[in-house]
């Protein structure tokens, strides 16, 4: 497989995953904005959404105030925002077009029809309660793409690079969501682990579709400690670091078998997974959750860079 093809598959999957995550974050922001204002206004909620989406700075460059409408438009439709759902879908599709021969017809059709249908949506049509339906649709389309990939793609190089892109991006997103909620919403580090409105916890879990599965696993109300553990260390939680790295390691092992040598990215991914499997939650809190997340994001980026280098991405 061409290095460029591998790169395109990797980025195609990353951008589809990102589109889904932006839709999830927008949904949470929207949900919060519907609840009664508790005094500080919804600006702070939208701000945290923008930060979690990695789009706060770019937003401020284009707008001087945070309003519901502007943020929604920026996150979903703005062509000048490279992480808007529209831009993500377009980038994903451009990458897919560049490697059409490496995709199955089902994968291409899932992505291409999403792109075409999205293009026909006018932001003005999403008023009065139609937004959740639309965001659901975005998530479903992402699921359709992953489903067609899992159901039709040969388990060879192409599959491994698609998996790597999806899980590197997902790990990154989960880390950002956690970091924003703990660090941005709370004024100081000391209050981490203290009391907080259950609603805030629910929104974190909701943004990763885990507010119900949490109950199954913990049989308890939302507690910061548990939520962090759930999203970081639990291997059965499909958006946790541990789960993502399980797949990253498996795909990198698969690639090492194919090219016949152990790569630097595999060594690094294995070491991250080992750490995740052995570190206890209280150690993470003791050394500071934010510091832990910052370090994780850095290591995750480094794995991504090594993948590009090991497999001759251009």
């Amino acid at each position: 497989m061409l290095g460029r093809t591998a790169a395109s598959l990797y980025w195609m999957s990353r951008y589809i995953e990102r589109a889904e995550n932006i839709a999830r974050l927008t949904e949470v922001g929207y949900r919060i904005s519907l609840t009664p204002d508790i005094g500080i206004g919804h600006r702070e909620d939208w701000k945290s959404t923008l930060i979690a989406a990695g789009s706060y700075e770019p937003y401020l460059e284009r707008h001087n105030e945070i309003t519901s409408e502007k943020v929604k438009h920026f996150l979903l439709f703005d062509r000048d925002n490279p992480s808007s759902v529209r831009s993500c879908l377009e980038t994903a599709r451009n990458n897919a077009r560049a490697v059409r021969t490496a995709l199955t017809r089902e994968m291409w059709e899932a992505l291409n029809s999403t792109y075409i249908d999205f293009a026909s949506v006018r932001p003005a049509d999403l008023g009065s309660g139609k937004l959740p339906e639309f965001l659901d649709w975005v998530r479903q389309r992402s699921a359709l793409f992953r489903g067609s990939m899992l159901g039709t793609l040969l388990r060879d190089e192409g599959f491994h690079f698609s998996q790597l892109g999806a899980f590197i991006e997902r790990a990154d997103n989960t880390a950002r969501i956690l970091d924003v909620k703990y660090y941005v919403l709370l004024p100081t580090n000391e209050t981490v682990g203290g009391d907080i409105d259950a609603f805030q916890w629910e929104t974190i879990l909701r943004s990763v579709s885990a507010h119900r599965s949490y109950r199954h696993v913990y049989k308890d109300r939302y507690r910061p400690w548990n939520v962090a553990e759930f999203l970081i260390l639990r291997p059965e939680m499909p958006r946790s670091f541990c789960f993502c790295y399980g797949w990253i390691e498996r795909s990198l092992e698969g690639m090492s078998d194919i090219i016949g040598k152990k790569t630097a990215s595999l060594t690094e991914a294995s070491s991250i997974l080992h750490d995740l499997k052995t570190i206890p939650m209280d150690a993470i809190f003791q050394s500071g959750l934010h510091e832990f997340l910052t370090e994780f994001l850095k290591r995750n980026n480094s794995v991504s860079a090594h993948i590009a280098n090991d497999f001759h991405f251009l």
Partner: protein
Amino acid sequence: MVALADGMMNTQASAKNKGSMKEAPAFFDEMRSADGSIRPAYQKIADWMGQQSRGGMARKQEEAEAIFRRLGITFAVYGDNASNERLIPFDLIPRVIAAQEWRFLERGIEQRVRALNLFLYDIYHRQEIIRAGRIPADLVVGNEAFLPQMMGFDPPGKIYSHIVGTDIVRTGENAFFVLEDNLRTPSGVSYMLEDREAMMHLFPELFAAHRVAPVERYPEMLRQTLESVAPPSCKSDPTLAVLTPGIYNSAYFEHSFLADQMGVELVQGSDLFIENGTLYMRTVSGKERIDVLYRRVDDSYLDPLAFRSDSTLGVPGLFDLYRAGGVTIVNAPGTGIADDKAVYAYVPDIIEFYTGEKPILSNVPTYRCSIADECHHVLDNLSHLVVKEVHGSGGYGMLIGPHATKAQLAEFEKKIKAKPSNYIAQPTLNLSTCPSNVGAGSAPRHVDLRPFVLVGDKIRITPGGLTRVALKKGSLVVNSSQGGGTKDTWVLED
């Protein structure tokens, strides 16, 4: 030559006198004879058309569009803000070519393609045809499309143009003309294949009622053709690749489609590099050798060391490696000289010179403004003629006399007088019509035909080709950029 051309002009003029060109032209319809009867090849199609309801056809039309859009068969339109991708309209009614008509076309195309490859070999070697005085030296070696760097080189199999798309128009029962030879990088073959696929999906019953010659083997034949021209350095099964300028190229879909159908890599210049006399592509495990490169990148962008130094679409050193026998470039660089508009007028001579035979297919009568007598004739008849710039490509720098304003005519007269050798002129052609689905039922629309020819260890011509249709009423312009569509093209077997 001139006399023949004049005769043609007279025929046209008399047709014009009987009725104004605009209102009641005597166009040849491929389904219906002048007396209204249906030609035998179209009999079952006509019956079928009679059975279709308007609503049913509209639904099938929508279904066809959905199929093409989902497959991503679009072409890029530059400078269109709303969306840079559009579908080429697909016409549901197939174009039918009778078996004996096709046999004639096939022989004619094969003769022409063979002769043009011999011509290319000759002008890049001893130039016997110039020495024999059959074509002016300056027209060939002074031509921008002539590539001096190709001289003295024997490409594998002595083949230059491996993939050809001969544009043919029909004006009467037995009147076929070659309009252009397209020997560089002709496109459209993916539409031929997908049109067939779509038709079989939409109207299986029609195929059950006819014996339609298959086109599906094209990718396999392309593969065989490419494998048959592996370079001398290749000692085992050759590795093939398709070189594309990238996803923003208007024919990107086709590049990707062909690579996929052949089961080979679709590469860009940045994927390739040369090392120790071998061309490689960068793969996830390092590198893999390439022996035959089917390139869909123009000559001047192939190699920044040999041609345009600012090109990022090619591979540095590729041309040297090609000449050293380390890789085969398909089509060869420099084939453009043989489909240059100024050389076109000489193709009948070229066929006779190399094959000793009379041309089977006719050229469109062409006046060369470089020859004083012919130039005179062109200037006297400007308002009846189509004038083309010889180095321009389709549509640019063109005058369509009958539709031109006085100012445009005056402008071209000035241009021709300033540099006669830059222009040729041809009569306007009465393109044949075929029934087309136009929403309000069916109506005749003008068509042309591009059969696809492969030249390798032997010449392989896919029965049929791409029919382009001018869907606008009365329009003679079949280009997809100007409202043209495509049709499935059937060659009936006996």
